[in-house]
């Protein structure tokens, strides 16, 4: 039988003995030990290219040297092969919704988000992985996998080197792509169409 959790292990059952002076004072039970660490955040090579392009309203991906798969945001590596991905490709700001989540909780530091909101995996046309983005401009109950979306950008004079340039993704109104070719299924559909094993 596992031990009763209300009974401490025998070795730990001893009471602490205190000097007289502390016999009648309220004991300290907790202590605040704040931590503050300052870092110099550097986005790295692949991200820098991606973020710099954002200032020009361009979305860059990187292409796998192995099979041409396109990664966005680029991280300098094809994670399937551990292969460096030095070549950038420009991608359109349209795509479709893969998996998504209707969230009814606030996010720390994002008081601007109205609840509920939809965070979704955005699969850009021409990209082979998705990234998280906010979907808006549509009732949350209407969002669906395969729905076509386009980026809604900040005004040109507010653009910077940041992914925050895209305020959210809104429906284009085009017909959905089939669920079997959406999100993470897109790669297999593409391989099948090319006559290769997925």
């Amino acid at each position, binding site marked *: 039988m596992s031990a009763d959790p209300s009974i401490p292990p025998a070795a730990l059952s001893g009471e602490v003995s205190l000097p007289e002076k502390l016999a009648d*004072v309220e004991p300290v039970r907790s202590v605040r030990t*704040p931590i503050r660490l*300052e870092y110099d955040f550097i986005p790295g090579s692949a991200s820098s290219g991606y973020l710099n392009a954002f200032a020009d309203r361009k979305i860059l991906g990187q292409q796998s040297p192995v099979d041409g798969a396109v990664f966005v945001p680029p991280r300098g590596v094809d994670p399937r092969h551990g292969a460096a991905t030095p070549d950038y490709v420009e991608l359109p700001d349209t795509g479709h919704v893969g998996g998504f989540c209707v969230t009814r909780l606030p996010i720390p530091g994002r008081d601007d988000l109205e609840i509920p909101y939809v965070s979704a995996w955005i699969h850009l046309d021409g990209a082979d992985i998705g990234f998280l983005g906010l979907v808006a401009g549509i009732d949350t109950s209407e969002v669906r996998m395969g729905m076509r979306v386009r980026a809604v950008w900040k005004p040109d004079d507010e653009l910077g080197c940041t992914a925050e340039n895209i305020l959210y993704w809104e429906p284009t109104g085009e017909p959905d792509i089939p669920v079997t070719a959406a999100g993470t299924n897109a790669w297999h559909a593409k391989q099948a169409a090319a006559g290769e094993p997925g």
Partner: protein
Amino acid sequence: MAERLRADLVLEYPFTRTTGPVIGAFLTGLREGIILGIRRPDGTVLCPPTEYDPESSEPLTDLVEVGPGGELLSWTWVDPPRSQSPWDQPHGLGLIRLDGADTPMVHGLLVDGPEGLSVGMRVTARWRPEREGHIADLKGFVPEGADQ
């Protein structure tokens, strides 16, 4: 050449730690203006006190008062002070073996400059007027007899 990007990243959190009986007693002592050590089975006293013997790992429970005077076993000089530390002026950092304890503790040394410090010198505790049960309730140590 693309613009080199950088940004400040600050990780900050007000961790609140529960203390258990031994650390809690030590911090209670500091709040009340006394320093506690803990007795090992061989009679020697650890300060600061841990809940367990550092060699056998068996529990220790016998808290005893030590200090407030003691001997400086080692020191260094910290200038400039580290930004998160309790000290905002250049100060010493020392290993202080308090009277009645057999092991030294690390704490600040409140003198004007490193020339005021030497191994083997006698020092004594200085307290902050407002105390909450924190290691920094001890403001640091000063040479014994110093009129601060």
